């Protein structure tokens, strides 16, 4: 399969190739729709995840007044080192979703993610995953992870690789706890899982 071949390349660490493609896409087409439309067809896993991360904004409703000011950007926090960060920066650059621009914030050890609406916790941070989730779960933050049992452990959405494609797991009770409403359309394309706490 075509897409699996590209994924294969990227997974082997041919990062430059993915970058070239991504840049070419940005320069040549310069539109979100192209990138979204490409989906996983010829994108790397992290490009796909970056796109999905942006797409979540469309299917999740945050409690009112979560974001101060109508012109304030939607903030995505990145926790831990990940290729996703770079891909996200490229994809989200200059883009507005739901009338808001996208701001990307690196979350260091401070764990100060309170201004974020979405928090991505990379696999690399799995060691302190529980700690972060514990802190975030009380806030109206959509927590997205990519580790095994992330959703079961209190994360709201988890990226899962299934047959070479990126699939979603959603913990509805966690979302509810965070005060988020997730669109049924999104639920329809995801696997709803239960947290261990439930």
């Amino acid at each position, binding site marked *: 399969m075509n897409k699996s071949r590209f994924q294969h390349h990227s997974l082997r660490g041919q990062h430059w190739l993915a970058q070239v493609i991504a840049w070419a896409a940005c320069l040549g087409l310069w539109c979100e729709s192209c990138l979204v439309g490409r989906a996983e067809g010829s994108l790397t896993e992290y490009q796909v995840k970056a796109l999905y991360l942006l797409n979540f904004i469309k299917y999740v409703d945050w409690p009112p007044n979560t974001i101060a000011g109508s012109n304030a950007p939607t903030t995505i926090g990145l926790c831990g080192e990940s290729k996703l960060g770079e891909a996200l920066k490229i994809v989200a650059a200059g883009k507005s979703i739901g009338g808001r621009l996208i701001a990307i914030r690196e979350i260091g050890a401070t764990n100060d993610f309170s201004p974020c609406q979405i928090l991505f916790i990379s696999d690399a941070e799995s060691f302190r995953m529980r700690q972060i989730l514990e802190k975030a779960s009380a806030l109206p933050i959509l927590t997205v992870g990519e580790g095994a049992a992330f959703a079961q452990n209190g994360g709201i959405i988890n990226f899962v690789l299934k047959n070479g494609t990126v699939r979603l797991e959603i913990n509805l009770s966690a979302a509810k706890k965070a005060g988020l409403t997730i669109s049924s359309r999104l639920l*329809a394309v995801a696997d709803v899982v239960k947290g261990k706490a439930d």
Partner: protein
Amino acid sequence: MRFLNNLSIRRKQTLIIMLTSTITLLLAGMAFLGVEAFNFRGDLTEEISTMTQVAGDNCTAALDFNVPKAAAETLGALRAEPAIASACIYNQQGEVFAVYQRGGKSTTVHFPSVQLPGHEFRDHQLRIFKPVTMQGKTIGTIYVSCDLYELNDRLKRFAAIAALVLGLSLLVAFVLSVRLQRVISGPILQLAQAVRTVTLEKDYSVRVTKQSNDELGQLMDGFNEMLVEIQARDAALQTARDNLEKRVAERTKDLENIHKQLVELSRRSGMAEIATNVLHNVGNVLNSVNVSTGLIVEKVKQSRTSGLAKVVVLLQKHENDLAAFITLDAHGKHLAAHLAQLSEYLMAEQGAILGELDSLRSNVEHIKEIVAMQQSYATVGGVKEMINVIDLVEDSVHINESALSRHKVEVIREFGDVPVMNVEKHKILQILVNLVRNAKYACEESGRTDKRLTVRVVNGDGRVRISLIDNGVGIPPENLIRIFNFGFTTRKEGHGFALHSGALAAKEMGGSLTVQSDGSGQGATFILELPCPKMERAYES
């Protein structure tokens, strides 16, 4: 239209009304059908568009998160509308992302390449393309194709209802037309009936009753007036005809009287002719009688009986000396020889006179015969006798015999076997005598030396044909046609009556008198045909 012309008014009217109704209803039905189809298409387009829109909206997440299965499931909801045959979602690149087929058929439907939003009706399908948008951004396209069988069903249903309505309407129209057309066809039919009565029964007293004051009413008034006029003329004509009939009857009576007189005249004339002939013959014979008488007188006058008287005187004078006288006297000596000579003379004289007397007697006998014949014909007309016509032919020749022999006309007889017939003898004889005499005249006029008259009697098929063929002057064609006309004759002393009355008489007896001639100098043939009923022949045999 020609076939229409042969229909009755009533039928025609019904037909026209029905035709008009049918066409009107059909047009209305078709218009409704068209509107229905148009509306249905609009409704269907709207309905399916909505469904498409909803399905597309429900597929946004599937597109966004690349889950074709979820999209397929969403499309599966379209089975709620059975008319939808197939549907698919295209991604941003126009590739088929997810598909739906009615009944979950596994056969691959060929989906068209992605097109601009819109709908079209093609191949009995409604095809809709709609963009799939998420927050104002187009992220894919949804395509739905919907069968129009429901439209067809609906149209069929509509057509069925329309047909039913049409049928009922026509029925009502028919009943109405049958009732209403009487207003028009009633008077016309009445008129037609009246015309038929007038034509067939010649009854001009028929009148039609006016029922309305329209053109038909005027027509009926006109018709009635016309009949009145015709009746008046008819009456006048009838009067004229009656008068004419009376006049014709009178004239006919006059003519009949004249005819009767003429017939009588002709009969008498014929009789006179026969009588003339008879007298002529008698005259001829009397001539011979006269000659014979003269001869006898002369003979007797010149008789030598005076010589005998002288001998007697001489003998008385020598009474006393008779012997001496005979022996001595010079005269006496010759007395014996003289006496012998005298007796010889007287004997011869007697013979001659006897001969003349014999001739005289036979001539007188002949006259007697002729007179007897005339008497036998001079009987009252109209009496029929059983007779052989050959005898009549012979008689007619005989009556003319002296004239024929005087003009040296050779008579050739060709008589066939003819039965005895019951005929009016004198009429036939009259005709034949006239014909024979005509033939004689014709021969005489020609001046030829071999004058010939052939008399032929042939028994034909139920008819006896008597032909008199002469080789005389003949008859020019222009005279052939009028030779039997009354008053036509070519002879100075003729009165043109005999042939005319002969032809009439032949006709009266059920026969005919005809003539044939090849022209002047070619001779002529007169043919008298008489009916000869087979019954009489059978009776004879």
